């Protein structure tokens, strides 16, 4: 049986009760490892195509980064991602609206504190009067350039979106019909931007945050506020090449600068679970995979930590590539060269989350607030990470819609050189609160309770190797056809029947759904 397409009243979505309502399918075609958004999306697409899908989730609830810790603490920390703007084609094709998902539409404001106590208010719109006025106070020249900038960013993001939706072939052996033509079409899309923007896009991607912002604007606080987005989630500074790429990537994920407001990420997880279930798929939580079973270079199923073995023709892993290949498959099953390259995938998480329960009088504007006064400030924050230390003056991005203030903290490197994370946790919490309080004085007094998620927490609870939210750094040598590894961006692995569908593959990093969707399509093509 399938579930009612909308949540039945009184029944908490995807609670064990709901999942239990389903009968376990007799045999399984596809096992998906990990019920994060990409795992669920891949599962939903495959189930929709008639495969018997079983999604296995180590934690007691699905959602991956769409959900918070849910560790029964006094207040529920929100999801790792403040908002989930999953691609519209995913929503359409999986009919997620039928399953209770409304994409967040309202563009959220993006605010940065100014030294004079005022704020710079940036809406990702070419015409927003408040934004233009706010910028004009800093520089009329910048205000005049803003509309052109926003228009360019939207075009650049749209192109990146198209690139993510295009499968990356294994070079040079390109299947011209299935892969070559889409690539050619993508090239044509780039050319269609017009000479000026085509070159702008090409030039922007490898630029540093400093170079990128300086080509557009002159006002320090504006450049810094934008530069923050260029280093967001990376272990790179405002003076490292490749910031331009991440800026476009973040703009695409958020649909601008600020996070969208509306339905939270958890609602997306719930809808995706329903989508899987609606097509006879099963999502089993509390089912941690210990090993992906391989026989004669072919994946034949998985073994759970409780010893149970489930066999299937196809195994799709939404876990990060290093964990999947070195952890769940194991080096002995893989070509030595491949193992070496997999070990070299740069993970390096350096993001911590600090969630603060306040009495509501924290003085922060609703939406997204950044603490990044200057481009140098961002670079200095990164310097600490380079040498394995927590930033003394961190770059912060705070999001709030009520009493809970969630702080994205950079940089808090996974690998600390001089202390361990048991002591560093307090350091991060203190610096997050103190730094935010210097810009929003009322904040300090409003605090009721503080709890944090460190990179090791991300590794242990979310299964993210080295606490890297993106399943691999979004650096120039780890994107497009080089993600996760050169030659392996087509979701396949050296193990026949084993595919990757997590953020660690092309299109990945953040809540877009591209990897899950691309993987499902690649699998269906391979199996044909």
């Amino acid at each position, binding site marked *: 049986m399938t579930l009612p397409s909308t949540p039945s009243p009184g029944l908490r979505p995807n609670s064990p009760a709901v999942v239990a309502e389903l009968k376990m399918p007799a045999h399984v075609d596809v096992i998906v490892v990990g019920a994060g958004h990409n795992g669920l999306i891949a599962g939903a697409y495959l189930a929709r195509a008639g495969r018997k899908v079983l999604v296995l989730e180590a934690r007691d609830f699905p959602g991956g980064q769409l959900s918070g810790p849910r560790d029964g603490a006094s207040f529920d920390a929100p999801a790792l991602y403040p908002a989930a703007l999953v691609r519209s084609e995913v929503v359409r094709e999986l009919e997620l609206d039928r399953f209770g998902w409304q994409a967040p539409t309202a563009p959220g404001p993006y605010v940065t504190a100014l030294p004079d106590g005022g704020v710079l208010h940036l809406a990702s719109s070419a015409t927003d009067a408040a934004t233009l006025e706010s910028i004009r106070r800093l520089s009329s020249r910048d205000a005049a350039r803003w509309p052109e900038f926003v228009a360019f960013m939207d075009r650049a993001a749209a192109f990146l979106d198209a690139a993510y939706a295009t499968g990356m072939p*294994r*070079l*040079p*052996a390109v299947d011209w019909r299935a892969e070559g033509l889409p690539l050619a079409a993508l090239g044509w899309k780039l*050319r269609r931007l017009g*000479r*000026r923007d*085509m*070159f702008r896009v*090409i*030039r*922007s*991607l*490898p*630029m*540093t945050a400093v*170079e990128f912002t300086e*080509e557009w604007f002159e006002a320090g606080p504006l450049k810094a506020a934008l530069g923050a987005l260029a280093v967001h989630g990376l272990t*790179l500074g405002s*003076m*490292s*090449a*490749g910031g331009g790429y991440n800026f476009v990537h973040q703009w695409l994920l958020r649909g601008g600068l600020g996070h969208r407001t509306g339905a939270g990420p958890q609602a997306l997880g719930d809808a995706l679970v329903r989508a899987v279930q609606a097509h006879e798929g099963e999502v089993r939580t509390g089912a941690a995979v210990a090993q992906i079973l391989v026989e004669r270079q072919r994946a034949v199923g998985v073994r759970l930590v409780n010893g149970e073995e489930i066999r299937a023709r196809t195994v799709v892993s939404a876990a990060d590539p290093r964990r999947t290949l070195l952890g769940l498959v194991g080096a002995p099953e893989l070509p030595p060269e491949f193992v*070496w390259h997999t070990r*070299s995938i*740069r993970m390096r998480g350096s993001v911590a989350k600090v969630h603060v329960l306040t009495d509501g009088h924290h003085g922060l504007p609703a939406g997204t607030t950044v603490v990044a006064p200057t481009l*140098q400030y961002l*670079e200095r924050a990164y*310097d600490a990470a*380079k*040498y394995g230390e927590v930033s003394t003056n961190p770059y912060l991005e705070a999001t709030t819609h009520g009493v809970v203030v969630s702080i994205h903290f950079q940089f808090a490197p996974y690998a600390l050189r001089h202390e361990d994370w048991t002591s560093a946790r307090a350091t991060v919490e203190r610096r997050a609160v103190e730094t935010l309080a210097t810009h929003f004085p009322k904040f300090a007094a409003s605090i009721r309770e503080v709890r944090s998620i460190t990179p090791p927490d991300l590794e242990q609870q979310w299964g993210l190797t080295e606490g890297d939210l993106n399943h691999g750094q979004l*650096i*120039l*040598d780890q994107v497009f*056809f*080089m993600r996760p590894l*050169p*030659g392996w961006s087509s979701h396949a692995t050296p193990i026949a029947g084993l595919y990757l569908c997590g953020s660690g593959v092309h299109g990945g990093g953040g809540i877009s759904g591209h990897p899950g969707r691309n993987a499902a399509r690649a699998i269906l093509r391979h199996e044909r």
Partner: protein
Amino acid sequence: MASYTFDAIVIGAGHNGLIAACYLARAGRKVVVLERRDIVGGAAVTEEIFPGYRFSEFSYVVSLLRPEIIRDLELPRHGLKILPLPSTVTPLDNGDYLAGWDDHDLTRREIYRHSPLDAEAYDEYSRVMARAAKAIKPIIGLVPPDPSSLGWRDLKGLLKLGRFGASLSETELYRISKLVTQSSADLLEEWFELDALKGTKAASGIIGTFLGPRSPGTAYVLLHHYMGEIDGAFRAWGFAKNGTGGVTAAIASSARALGVEIRTGAAVDKVVVKGGRAAGVALANGDEYEAKVVLSAADPKRSFLQFVDPQHFPDEFVEALRNFRVRGSSGKVNIALSELPQFTCLPGEGPLHRGAVSISPSIDYVERAYDDAKYGQFSRQPYMDIIFPSMIDRDMAPPGHHVMSCFVQYAPYDIEGGWDDAKREAFGETVIATIEKYAPNIRRAIVGKQVITPKDIERIAGITGGNIFHGELLLHQLFFLRPAPQWADFRTPLPGYYFGAAGAHPGGGVMGAAGKMAAEEVLQDWRK
């Protein structure tokens, strides 16, 4: 007001200008080279700074000079002699050293002494890098096509490029894509564990660049330095007899033999434009030269923003050139010595003095050197590449005495408060103090020292910003983006005005490729 008529005027008697002139003259054209200084050579000059002591004032080693140029211009017949620079020794802080000799097995054994693992990796690393450099080399000799154009020349270029890509094996293709986008630190950490080995190799990834070894894009610069060869000995570095000025002297002599007129002390003030075409140049002293074409071998900023009135260029082009990054990051200290410095790690006069000494104990050391520079200071503990020209060519110094050439990074052009004599003095002192740590007798050996900051490079050699590559080797300033989109084929928006120096593809180093290709493009347009 005197006036002269030629087929072609070449601005600047650096190696690129002279080489361009030679190729034009070989085609039977009447060519004059106009040099601002009283000596030819540009940044490849040998000067007697102190009586009896001769220095390769700026560029100090040779490797990248294209062999076909050496052949075509019969440079050996004109006195070009390149002496091998057999080794690189890196003194360690523990009093030991790490050496790379010209003999692969010796080097392997030397590395083994410190780390058996790295000795293993070294074999494969050398092979892989050599293969990658060989594979990418054809690009150097390729006129970059404009990917946005559908003109026959560009389509032909793109086709060539495609064929080149197809000619590469899968591994080569991926290795190159990685090398072009990676950071040199990431590259080397994949291979080695020895700090000194990683530090020394990473250093060639930052030369002439305003980035640290941990920034993406630096692995390309490293590869750039791998592309040299001497007498077919791939990636060997050498020292020119009579210093680097010996190279340009040979080219100048070859030029004169081909009937090229070289006029020194002839500083070009403006390019004369008649009827929308470059028609000649006007000198600072009022003299005017007329010619069918003008080819500038000066840096991009002067060639396009100073010599020519912006009204003759499209705004986009001018904007692109204004955004072109030319931040100088290196300095040079040339020292006259009464005796050789005694390095405590290898006492006595030895092979160390016949090769290069690299002050690069670790990647962190080099990265920290960059940290100072990016915040507007010269490195307190700089990276250095030191050679002793008098040990390779006795004629460089009086008998028994020596000259020492120290290439130093980082020294930012935009140092806080600007460069003055006091800062230059302090910079020189920092360099001496750094050497003293490894060679205590250095101070008493000093007869005289010339400290060159990026400002001095600009003042003496006339390179705007003092960047030794006429423009940083950043990913967004390479190939079809160098010096500006759509104008990477050595032509400019001003008919009759050509551009052939390090600021064009394939970039810096005493390579000559830009000068040669520019001349060839001029001749091609003439044939039409």
